[in-house]
């Protein structure tokens, strides 16, 4: 088979292929753009933006674990205004070439989520906005935004009201029932769900008797979490009808195919970018290769195609 069709329709978004790079692992694309032409990607989701610049956590921010890594970057970012002024404009050429640019929004209050979203949406510089509601540090509260259905509903609904581009809501896996959260997000107006964000975890240096991360705990990502991510994608895809970006431990084309089979329409590559600067590109190429080998003409044939 010579040619395969990799295009997918992810809710309101048209992707040239289903591979996105995930927030926080790809900066604003600049660094990896020196390694390969980013227009090979379906889209890139940029680093989380907040209302004001954020310093982030003290180091160490990264710890390696079996099959994965822990990170506690702490949302270091220049703030949404600086991002709009400096980071997003260089990416506009990519959009013209059919690769989506998606903003990732974090916040410490409903107001911050809305303010950042509105600015990004109004800027015209992004094709969609991904809401990162998995951050447990909430002003005044202490309860995480992303782990209770009611809060999820409220924050997504508030943001939806000020967001004129497609809205992706990124779910935390640190919950008892991911479908409950998914329902809330969908009911509140999410166009697309991305799952999963990192699992909460911790690493200890036994000899020094200290946590490795300055932040004590961090987010677990990479191949180690792939089984958990696959299961949550499958579970949500079975429970409801909303387009899903499947994320968690994808490092190969076969991994990507597994997520599509489980019910995702697109996939996100995170830690693989850290393991290899060509990580996401390889996923694109290997997925295409996989389709050819399996004599599958269109990648859409895989979506939800698991035989149970």
């Amino acid at each position, binding site marked *: 088979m010579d040619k395969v069709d990799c295009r997918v329709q992810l809710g309101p978004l048209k992707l040239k292929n289903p591979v996105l790079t995930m927030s*926080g*692992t*790809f*900066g604003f694309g600049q*660094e*990896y*753009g*020196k*390694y*390969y*032409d980013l227009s090979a990607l379906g889209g890139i989701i940029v*680093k*989380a933006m907040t209302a004001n610049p954020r*310093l*982030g*956590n*003290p*180091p*160490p*921010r*990264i*710890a*390696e674990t*079996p*099959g*994965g*890594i822990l*990170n*506690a*970057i*702490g*949302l*270091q970012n220049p703030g949404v205004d600086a991002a709009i002024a400096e980071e997003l404009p260089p990416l506009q050429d990519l959009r013209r070439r059919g690769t989506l640019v998606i903003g990732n929004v*974090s916040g410490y209050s409903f107001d911050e989520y809305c303010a950042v979203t509105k600015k990004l949406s109004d800027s015209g510089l992004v094709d969609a906005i991904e809401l990162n509601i*998995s*951050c*447990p*540090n909430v002003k005044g509260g202490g309860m995480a935004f992303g782990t209770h259905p009611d809060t999820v509903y409220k924050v997504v609904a508030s943001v939806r009201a000020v967001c004129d581009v497609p809205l992706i809501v990124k779910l935390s896996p640190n919950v008892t029932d991911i479908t409950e959260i998914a329902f809330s997000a969908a009911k509140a107006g999410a166009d697309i769900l991305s799952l999963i*964000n*990192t*699992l*909460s*975890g911790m690493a200890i240096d036994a000899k020094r008797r200290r946590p*490795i991360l300055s*932040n*004590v*705990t*961090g*987010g*677990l990502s*990479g*191949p180690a979490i792939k089984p958990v991510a696959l299961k949550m994608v499958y579970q949500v895809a079975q429970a409801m009808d909303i387009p899903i970006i499947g994320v968690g431990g994808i*490092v190969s084309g076969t991994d990507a195919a597994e997520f599509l089979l489980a019910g995702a329409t697109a996939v996100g590559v995170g*830690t693989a*970018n*850290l*393991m*290899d*600067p*060509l990580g996401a590109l390889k996923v694109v190429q290997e997925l295409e290769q996989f389709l050819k080998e399996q004599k599958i003409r269109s990648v859409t044939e895989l979506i939800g195609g698991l035989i149970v």
Partner: protein
Amino acid sequence: MLREDARKLQLTSVVDNRPLTPDVYHLILKAPKLAAEAKPGQFVMVKVAPGLEPTLRRPFSLHRIDREMGQVEIIYQVVGRGTDILTARRAGEGIEILGPLGNGFCLQEAKLIGLVGGGMGIAPLLAAAEQAVQEGREIVAFLGARTGDYLLAQEEFERLGQVFVVTDDGSVGEKALVSKPLQDYLQTKQLDLILGCGPTPMLKALKSIADTQGTLAQLSLEQRMGCGVGACLGCAFPVKANTPEGYIYKRVCYDGPVFWAHEVLFSLPNEAAKQGGCSGGQS
């Protein structure tokens, strides 16, 4: 599809990989492209084993850059899983590396350069010393280690200039910290530039000596890394800045690993440590 930096991903082959002490190894790699373009102070990320484990590459400074032979050398200490795996790689085997990365030392117009190295920190200074001497500059090296066994490359430095050695146990040279001979030296002489690499307490001392003496100094720093290419913000190090907090985090892999001593912060101003950010699973 590939762009210029993709050349930094290269399959090198092991020329030699042998122990200098039971836990310090000397690795020589055939890597013509790398040798041709690397600068002293730059580093590489080494994929210690093929496959998924360990997850991340390991950063090592270039100890020596041999353009003619098309080789680079690394000296590494076995401290954990990755370096342990690395010891098993034999001559002839391939190792994938990513590099050169980071900015390297900047020798500027300096005529007389002081090189201050502690332990493994001595490793990258040799490359700088060799370049400096080749360019007709003068060097003086201050080398310190736990014991004489860990005094790397002493002979090589002696071929290039004056050398002061100290050890923690007095087994070779004076029993002192490496800041001691440097301070003694600076009582009577002036250095145009100091290049330092070693454990944090040593770098702190160096910074304070450079600050008080008004000598320009560059320090090569270490930090746990993710990507190595500037994208993940994993390798943060605080440097002074005109922000409300008085500092920002720079990336050791991309903005460093070499920083000006006067801009680096070894402890954060006031409430900084409290200003955490999004903790517990997020990023």
